[in-house]
């Protein structure tokens, strides 16, 4: 349907309202990206794109990234625009719902972390911490479609 999508990460199955997340992001993408002055840098794609991650590591890197957005990114993206804040809330609560399912897979050892995903995630954190927190959060939010495209 135009609604949910089932992601298969090996034995880990995660049902996600991808359309709702994408609709929320599309509605604010231009606004958020306009707040990101440093267009030459990327948090998710530097130095290597997510597409380079081995399939066996996909579940772990996805789990890491959902934790990253929930724990570090969304809370620093509050704006003066009520509409933008509502859409960020919509995305954040959807991410929370998906993260819970990924966490369950992780607990059942269905979402193992290999060397590569650990290194990749360290790089993402280094990119993030190389900027001041608000710029880093806004840039990460503006790159959400990179994550969504890679997931799909």
């Amino acid at each position, binding site marked *: 349907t135009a609604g949910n999508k089932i992601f298969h990460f090996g034995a880990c199955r995660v049902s996600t*309202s991808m359309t709702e997340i994408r609709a929320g992001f599309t509605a604010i993408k231009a606004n958020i990206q306009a707040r990101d002055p440093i267009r030459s840098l990327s948090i998710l794609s530097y130095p290597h794109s997510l597409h380079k991650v081995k399939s066996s590591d996909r579940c772990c890197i996805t789990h890491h990234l959902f934790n990253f957005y929930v724990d570090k990114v969304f809370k620093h993206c509050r704006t003066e625009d009520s509409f933008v804040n*509502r859409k960020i809330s919509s995305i954040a609560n959807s991410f*929370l719902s998906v993260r819970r399912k990924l966490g369950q897979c992780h607990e059942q050892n269905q979402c193992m972390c290999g060397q590569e995903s650990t290194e990749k995630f360290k790089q993402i954190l280094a990119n993030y911490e190389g900027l001041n927190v608000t710029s880093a959060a806004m840039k990460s939010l503006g790159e959400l479609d990179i994550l969504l495209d890679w997931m799909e």
Partner: protein
Amino acid sequence: EDALLPAPQNITILSTNMKHFLTWSPVIVQGETVRYSVEFQGEYEREYANESWIPISECSLITGTVCNITEDISATVAYNLRVRADVGAQRSEWGTLKGLFNRITTSLTPPLMKVIADGYHLLVELEDMGPAFQFRVLYWKKGQERRVLQKVVKEVRSVVHLDTMEAGADYCVKAQTYVEAINRSSSFSQTQCVRAHGDKSMWL
């Protein structure tokens, strides 16, 4: 601003087929127009954003006592909701929904459907209930109730072709909705039966 104005009471949610409405009892102030404002708080805001609240602009300073919160209840997590009243410079305390609301509790009604015999073709028209809805359609030839066939309709088109019928035979259909986001189904609709055109003897 003193809080002489009473907070709105009887705050409830009416949720049917993934459409969610917040309602409350009006605050009565003789000769005055009372206005209301609504805010929501998802699980994320409670646990990661200092229990912050987010205003719903379409329901800021409204005079009605209903707010469509469907757009903001867009994840399958628990939400909190609150309403306050304003009259001139007076502002009430917040009235908060008793308990949290999760869209997983929405009530799902059977879909409206219309079964059509178009010559030998068995067709069904299904109500468009929005992108969150799929339909499970069961159909069978009358008298062969043990050979029920199924078609899952993921995106509503105007008409769905189910089968090619035998001349003169009766066919029956029923349908239910399925919402993947909350992994729940409605009950089945009433069964509808139609007869295929033509004469049964034609097939001998």
